């Protein structure tokens, strides 16, 4: 059963993660990027660093700050979601994903990694909200950047399901697999909606997934994860647009 908008509001305000209110978890999630920025800044203050390395560190500071700001922005959007007016419109997922890949390339390059779009043919249009969908894919991609192993690439994939009625946008990473034991222990960690449960990875609070799960539901879609031996694919399923069939 899908949650109503009213239930969304209740969830966003009262969500608990491992027994902690979402606000506490959000603060904890922001600790990592802030701590990194602080360490880099303190080291730059100390001097004794080559000009080349200083540039490298400053680039890391700006990219890390951008990622932290994305999280705060998603949080704000999530809390305001029930009262916000947003349009659902036909979207070309191929074009949207190409834009995302272009925007994420500097961040991935700075991590010596590659993000690429792999879709086999021209994609059908889907029904969604451009801003929310973009936030979902950016979140999955940020997540994949953390888990991709070595210099493994991250792939954004567009696929159709249910005889073309559903469009699936997935982000595939190649990293260490989550063991069955850990996966089972996380089974009830995160309830994205009343209909589906998705699991965060062990060191993740699951807050990011919770937020994008709300974004997906607001577009009448849902998110999910497929585990692979060498990583995972996080995906969002959205309805295909019937626009073309009306022609």
């Amino acid at each position, binding site marked *: 059963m899908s949650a109503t908008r009213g239930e969304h509001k209740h969830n966003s305000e009262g969500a608990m993660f491992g027994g902690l209110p979402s606000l506490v978890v959000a603060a*904890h999630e922001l*600790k*990592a990027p*802030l*701590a*990194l920025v602080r*360490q*880099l800044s*303190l*080291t730059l203050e*100390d001097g*004794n*660093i080559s000009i080349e*390395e200083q540039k490298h560190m400053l680039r*890391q500071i700006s990219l*890390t700050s951008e990622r932290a700001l994305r999280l705060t922005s998603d949080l704000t959007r999530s809390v305001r979601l029930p009262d916000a007016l947003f349009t659902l419109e036909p979207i070309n997922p191929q074009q949207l994903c190409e834009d995302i890949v272009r925007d994420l390339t500097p961040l991935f390059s700075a*991590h010596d990694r590659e993000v690429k779009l792999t879709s086999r043919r021209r994609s059908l249009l889907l029904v969604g909200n451009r801003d929310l969908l973009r936030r979902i894919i950016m979140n999955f991609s940020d997540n994949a950047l*953390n*888990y991709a*192993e070595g210099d493994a690439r991250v792939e954004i994939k567009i696929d159709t399901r249910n005889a073309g009625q559903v469009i699936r946008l997935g982000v595939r990473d190649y*990293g*260490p*697999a*989550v*063991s069955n034991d*850990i996966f089972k222990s996380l089974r009830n960690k995160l309830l994205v909606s009343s209909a589906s449960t998705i699991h965060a*990875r*062990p*060191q993740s609070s699951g807050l990011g997934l919770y937020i994008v799960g709300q974004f997906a539901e607001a577009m009448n879609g849902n998110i999910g994860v497929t585990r692979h031996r060498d990583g995972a694919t996080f995906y969002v399923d959205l309805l295909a647009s019937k626009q073309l069939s009306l022609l």
Partner: protein
Amino acid sequence: MKRSSVLIVEDDKWLAEQYARVLKLAGYKTTVSLHALAAIEVIDDIHPDAIVLDVLLAGSTAFALIHELQTYEDTGKIPIILCTHLASELSLENLKPYGVKRIIDKSVMVPDDLVSAVKSVLL
């Protein structure tokens, strides 16, 4: 004089790089592992003098790695410095039997804290 080697186990690549930068400037040889499984292989290869370890890692936690290290006599003696945001929730006294010699709070540490901690466990 042989430089002491420090293994950094931290899944945030840039933070690991930062720790390595600070320790190298202080004269230590550093190796980075981004998760616990890779760390086990590296420990077998390089036999580090100390390990700087994050608690929440991709794949399995630091405690799984600590448990693994404690299984063998040689690796069980390597001093461990936990560098974590969960410092306030951990007790050094409880973790000492498992080779943990220092706990550093990532949120408030300054770069020199890491150097001081490594120095102190290698005395």
